[in-house]
């Protein structure tokens, strides 16, 4: 399942006014939940069997009548969540400048922070092109799995 398919799925769900949607296949699981009115959270587990063929999505086609005219607006910013439990660092060393700040433009492979767990320094990539609009965690603080770290406005 690639980004394009996820995007198509998101549009479909927004059109139908669904609050939550879950699809589970042997190779992957995706859950999309609308929280509030503007933010859409996407939680997706990577395939356990990377070599398995990607199945075609068999979504029920929405009927024309079901398309709600008052669909939720497209999300203006997306959260970048922590992929792990650890300690959040905004810069490579205590004295150096932060990797990114509010207003920084990031690409998919831009390092935005380090999360330290058991002396493994994990450089976290933005995974999206956009502008950082918010830094949500203070330097040196512990973070949990899925804790939002930044808000990024996709470009």
């Amino acid at each position, binding site marked *: 399942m690639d980004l394009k398919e996820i995007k198509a799925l998101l549009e479909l769900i927004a059109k139908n006014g669904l609050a939550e949607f879950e699809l589970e296949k042997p190779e992957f699981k995706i859950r999309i939940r609308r929280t509030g009115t503007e933010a859409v959270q996407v939680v997706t587990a*990577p395939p356990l069997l*990377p070599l398995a063929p990607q199945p075609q999505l068999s979504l029920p086609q929405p009927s024309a009548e079901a398309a709600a005219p008052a669909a939720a607006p497209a999300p203006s910013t997306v959260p970048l969540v922590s*992929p*792990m*439990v*650890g*300690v959040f*660092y905004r810069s*490579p*060393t*205590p*004295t*150096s400048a932060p990797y990114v700040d509010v207003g920084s433009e990031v690409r998919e*492979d831009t*390092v935005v922070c380090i*999360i*330290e*767990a*058991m*002396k*493994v*320094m*994990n*450089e*976290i*990539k933005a*995974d999206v092109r956009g502008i950082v609009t918010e830094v949500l965690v203070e330097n*040196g*603080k*512990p973070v949990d*799995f899925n804790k939002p770290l930044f808000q990024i406005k996709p470009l």
Partner: protein
Amino acid sequence: MTEQPPAAPPLPHQVADDIWCPDAVLALCRSTGPGMSAGSAPAVEAPMACPWQVLLFHETASTNDVALREAVHGAPAGLVVAAAAQSAGRGRQGRAWVSPRGAGLYVSFLLRPALEAAHASRLTAIAAVAAARAMDESLAASGGPGIRTAIKWPNDLHVHGRKAGGILIEAAIHGGRISHAVIGIGINVHHRRDDFPPELSDTATSLALALALASGGEERGEPSSPLRRVELLARLMDNMANSLATPFETLRAEWESRCSTLGRTITIRQPDGTLLQGTAAALDDTGVLHVEDYEGRTHRVHAGEVLG
């Protein structure tokens, strides 16, 4: 790199360990690559069909930096960068690591493990156990049998209660998974007591000092040690391959049994500066230390420095 990094300080004494002499490198080439063991559930599903590919330096700024740069340029898993000296050795959060010329061994392994980010800390146990075994083997082969390297949580390598080595792992996370990880291991091999800066002289040691102590010899007067860094490197590569192919539960058991922190009353300085006191009670399956404070509450510690 056009800029020349500052040179590592030379050792004031000579060691007989000509690290990358042709014979030594030939011996190294005989050591095999990391073939998968028969075990069906290795600690890390790593695409390790390749043998180790080794880059040897007399001196470089930082072996981790070289390996990370190679990783970004697409180097495959299995790259090993080894140096006899580092001019800009690093520890956690950019701290300097004392790496004088001629005394230590600095090695970085590039891996591309099929690991979720949430399991990245397994690499710590894999690296710490591999390094501890390699150090024990080198000591035993050099006349110091029975010395057991201990692991101070999470990954300091201690011999006779003093720090003889350290590990710094740097991983790149893309989409919740590790795209590559570099495991850097620094081991003090030939250092004498006065090779360490004064602030480390009570807490640091080297394999040579440990050998001298084990043989009852006077530590300072030892003319040379029989240790060979190229042998230590070969043992590191073998043990790293072995660690990667060992089921994680087996590895964790050894990590725990070597962990000198467990069961002790400790003080931890946490990354935000606060101190936590209590008993180091357990390690969970991700390697997180559980500390029980005086009021019986359990704290899960992911990072910090054990002060004593």
